[in-house]
């Protein structure tokens, strides 16, 4: 009896395993790398600002208040898609949004902001992508949530959506949507 059903059981077990694999890749985007920075202090940086290149902002300057660090560039098409969401988050004022202009030309970045609007409280400039490597950035847009003590709490890869903002970001800064 067992010998008869054993192949069937093995087949069902194998099919179940494969199904679980398919389900796993449906719920999780395999192109999104989990960041090892989560719950660890944000990397040190000291970067010039876009609007006043002679001024620079360091990690220590941003301590005391939680912030979103939004990695964007004028060459990034998905950033344009994301832009209205960033504007709304900024207008709501529940958290300050810091721009991180990644591997961009100052003239292009400024023109982009003039065209679409500037939602950022401050904009850091990482011209050569070196600081981006410290953050584990591998594309744009990416968004980091850093808490008041300078610890990275959350990272989102790709355009930020209102859902991610409401369900992932706001609860982490203790604000009920």
């Amino acid at each position: 009896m067992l010998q008869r059903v054993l192949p069937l059981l093995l087949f069902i077990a194998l099919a179940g395993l494969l199904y679980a694999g398919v389900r796993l890749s449906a719920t999780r985007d395999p192109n999104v790398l989990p960041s090892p920075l989560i719950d660890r202090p944000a990397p040190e940086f000291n970067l010039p600002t876009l609007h006043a290149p002679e001024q620079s902002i360091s990690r220590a300057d941003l301590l005391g208040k939680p912030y979103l660090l939004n990695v964007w560039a004028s060459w990034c098409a998905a950033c344009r898609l994301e832009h209205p969401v960033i504007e709304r988050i900024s207008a709501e004022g529940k958290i300050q949004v810091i721009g991180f202009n990644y591997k961009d030309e100052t003239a292009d970045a400024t023109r982009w902001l003039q065209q679409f609007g500037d939602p950022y409280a401050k904009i850091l400039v990482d011209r050569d992508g070196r600081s981006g490597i410290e953050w584990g950035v591998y594309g744009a847009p990416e968004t980091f949530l850093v808490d008041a003590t300078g610890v990275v709490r959350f990272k989102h890869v790709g355009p930020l959506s209102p859902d991610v903002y409401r369900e992932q970001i706001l609860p982490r800064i203790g604000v009920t949507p």
Partner: protein
Amino acid sequence: MRLAGLLMLFWLYAGQALAIDPLPFADAAQEQRFRDLTAELRCVMCQNQSLADSGAGIAVDLRREIFELMSSGRSDDEIKTFLTERYGDFVLYNPPIKPSTLLLWFAPFAILLAGAIFIVVLLRRRGARFAQTGNAPVNDSREDW
């Protein structure tokens, strides 16, 4: 037409050449070490390519970073640690053995062992039947599989 084809060919190869950014290696040994190291690191943008093969912007940046770390005297392990601290174990084609990767490393061997045990049990049973009857086991439909 032939000229267009030739130009097309040049254009294709030009793309290839651009993917390999020239780095000022100190000697052939350093270049070989660089090639070996980047071949076992995974490009974070295009995960089916190694860092050595990828032409993605971030891969170029990371190669430059690795080259500079190498030139400043860091060991391969230190460079790997540098990358995993920022991009996670994903950058390694050989993930480290730790509790969360035990299944990944040892499940294939466990399945192989289970299969071997299964076959040994099956053969013993057949052998026992053979000894009882003194005949080769009858090949009835039940044992076809």
